[in-house]
């Protein structure tokens, strides 16, 4: 038989856990808006944005389209051209999107992950880590070098050569 105060503490703990679980599952992120925290880092020729979210996460952009539910960490590598260093640091609920498409991305999901983007649309229940280092249209001529450590964004190095004769 538990005392009243002990029973009250247990009820409070159960309520806290319930609210946390409900909040996590009911929370929603759509693209760069929602219950998220993002950290932007300037590196050598690149800008890395790490995005953390819990709950539902819907992405509508072509190369990253899909839906996740659970704990999600997404990391995007952009060219640093046109991205002000003043935007570096933490952003909450939304984050500024650089003007160009990401050069590379890394996504880690624990939970349910539905991926709609080519080359392999699919569904995962459990843990999934996906890295896309290049996505180039069939008629495009590009030259790039990327060194990328998803857990150490400051080491990222991106070089894009626009004129092969000069590189």
């Amino acid at each position, binding site marked *: 038989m538990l005392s009243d105060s002990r029973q009250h503490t247990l009820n409070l703990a159960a309520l806290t856990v319930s609210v946390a679980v409900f909040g996590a599952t009911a929370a929603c992120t759509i693209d760069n808006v929602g219950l998220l925290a993002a950290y932007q880092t300037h590196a050598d020729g690149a800008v890395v944005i790490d995005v953390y979210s819990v709950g539902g996460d*819907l992405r*509508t952009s*072509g190369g990253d*389209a*899909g*839906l996740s539910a659970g704990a999600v960490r997404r990391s995007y590598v952009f060219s640093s051209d046109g991205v002000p260093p003043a935007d570096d640091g933490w952003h909450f609920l939304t984050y500024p999107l650089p003007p160009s498409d990401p050069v590379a991305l890394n996504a880690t999901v624990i939970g349910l992950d*539905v*991926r*709609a*983007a*080519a*080359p*392999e*649309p*699919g*569904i*995962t*229940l*459990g*843990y*999934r*880590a*996906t*890295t*896309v*280092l*290049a*996505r*180039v*249209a*069939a*008629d*495009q*001529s*590009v*030259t*790039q*070098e*990327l*060194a*990328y*450590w*998803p*857990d150490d964004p400051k080491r990222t190095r991106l*070089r894009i*050569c626009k004129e*092969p*004769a000069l*590189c």
Partner: protein
Amino acid sequence: MLRVGSILGLLAIVVALAGCEASQLYVGADTVIGVNAGVNTERTAGHFIFGYDRNFATVIPKSVPGVKDNPDPNAREAMSALSCSKVTTDGIFLTGFKESLATGGAADAYARKIQQGQPTTMFSCFKQ
């Protein structure tokens, strides 16, 4: 019931987006622990995984218009690509990537430069 319907609707939209994807070259890696099912749109092949799987791959479009030295305007060939990848692992996880890539005309130009021994500031992996 309404919530289940909404989720199914969202799933349908997400899956439908896959059909809009243009033919592209991909370099990427995938690590799965759990249950995974997927379809490869390039090869129209599917897979089902239960447990652990990891892969690193380059997917190259097989049919690109404009074949060099071929007057036929409908002629097609595989996309030109010159690629060099270095992957760092920590246990079962992929932790670091170094990728050098040239595609299309740039790939042809770099292949010629390397073959002729001309200096380049890219593709250090091909230097002897």
